[in-house]
């Protein structure tokens, strides 16, 4: 993540919180909790990306294990 992009994302995130605040206040408690959880997850993802903390995403597991397995099943078929 380049520093320019990091700043851009941070500004977008803060602006989103600012714009959504009034809307979220009108929602029920469950929606408010969900929003807090979602925004916390976004912040966590941002920090992981910014500090380059190694994480194994489920998609990477599928790409690196399931994908090649399916490919190996089909590849000999095509020659």
């Amino acid at each position, binding site marked *: *993540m*380049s520093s320019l*992009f990091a700043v*851009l*994302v941070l500004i*977008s*995130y803060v602006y*989103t919180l600012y*714009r*959504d605040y009034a*809307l*979220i206040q009108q*929602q*029920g408690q*469950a*929606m408010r909790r*969900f*929003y807090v959880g*979602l*925004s916390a*997850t*976004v912040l966590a*993802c*941002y920090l*992981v*990306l910014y500090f380059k903390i190694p*994480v194994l*995403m*489920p*998609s*990477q597991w*599928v*790409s*690196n294990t*399931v*994908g*090649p397995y*399916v*490919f190996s*099943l*089909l*590849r000999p*078929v*095509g*020659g």
Partner: protein
Amino acid sequence: MDRIREINSRQLTWLVSVMITAGGLMSLPKSLIEVASLDAWVSEIGGVLYGGMIAFVLYQLAMRFPGKNLFEIARELWGPVIGGLINGLMLLYLWTILLRDARVFTDFIITLLLPRTPSDIVLYLLIMLVIYYGRSSIEVTARVNDFVFPAFGFLLAALPLMLANELSFQRVEPMLGHGALPVIGSNFLTIGWFGDVIIAGCFLNTIRNAKVIYHSLRHAVVLSAALLSIILFMIISVLGSKIAGRILFNTYSLVEQIHITDFLDRMELLVFSVWIPAYILKTCFIFIAFMHGCTSFFQSRDHAPITRMSGWFLMLTTLLSFDSLSETFNFSNFGAIAIALVLHPLILVPLIIRAYRHKPKKKALEPPDEVHYGSRRKQPKQAGSLLRNMLHQRTLRSWRITSNALLGTAVALIIVGVLFGPMHSIVGTTCSLGFGFCLLFAVLTTHMERLTVVNEAFQRKMRRKKNKQSDGAA
């Protein structure tokens, strides 16, 4: 914001078609050609059968729960805990598809069109657009798609004409000459893409008549298969299977080959200015489905408050999800099939088991209140064309039988072709071409199915209105 939003059957058909075709264009051809080589262009029938099966399951659910989408049906059938779990699985599926699509789009743009632009920025712009559409409703996406899909479909269908000077039938021969296994393998792969029809389940509430949903989805699946088959045939006949199997985005290379005159030799810019909006609309369609899934936990249909934050969540998880282009391709083409075959049964089987205890509602077979297509329904009878009258005199049942017979013949031709093609090349060629014609005719017959079911629903509504008026007068 909580009003019922409606789209018509054509819009549903085009949305599902753009979802399957635009996604399949970017990365699928390479893997299909790698697996089935020359026979890759007959790979779509497996996807058609799977997509048709999902459409039938959605039809059964829509018949029993009119005006409800897949998430609401799951909650109603299984309660908040197990229903919530099923909805969670559906959300997981939608999220993986969004990751795949956003990443494939970014990789496509930075590899071929804007190599000096950072991928993060391309992704950021895509997400901004997705959020913009996501804050509105499915109606907006459907209406924009009404502009984009005709141009998109026309450009795909016109490829044989535009590339007539480049294609060589010798590159496609021997057709079906490599036995059954490559064809089975490639047909298996397309299931991962055609399985995306399940996303239409998130919008079951937007069309009230269950039959209209079913026939719209059937037509969408067959139309997408025909368009993808055309493009695969063109890729193999223009680039050859060996080169096409090695190029990452072989669709782009194919379009680069269009040289209509000396002045129109950069047609790829024109073609991609239509294909890219189609791809973005597909992503928006899935994102709105994802939003519906999120709000289903709060029993609400207003997703505006969480759209922006969900967009940023999607962007950051997309950046985290894949390290390289090969990972993205492995995921989208080979991982998608595993995900679809694991998650689809976990989502649909529990719903179907419980749904069969409920009787189909009469309301689900009634025509929609808001008929967008009313004025066009009267045209066939007034038109003097013999062919038109002949086409419109047939019943829904006869169209359905014809479509099923055509698809059955297509499957039978492939089976005969792969069995006898390796020994007699003429059999392989005849069966392949027969398959192509069956698929093209099936596009017409499923289209007529859709029109007939809409027409019947409209006429029923008119009859009921007349009866009410005559009762009132009496």
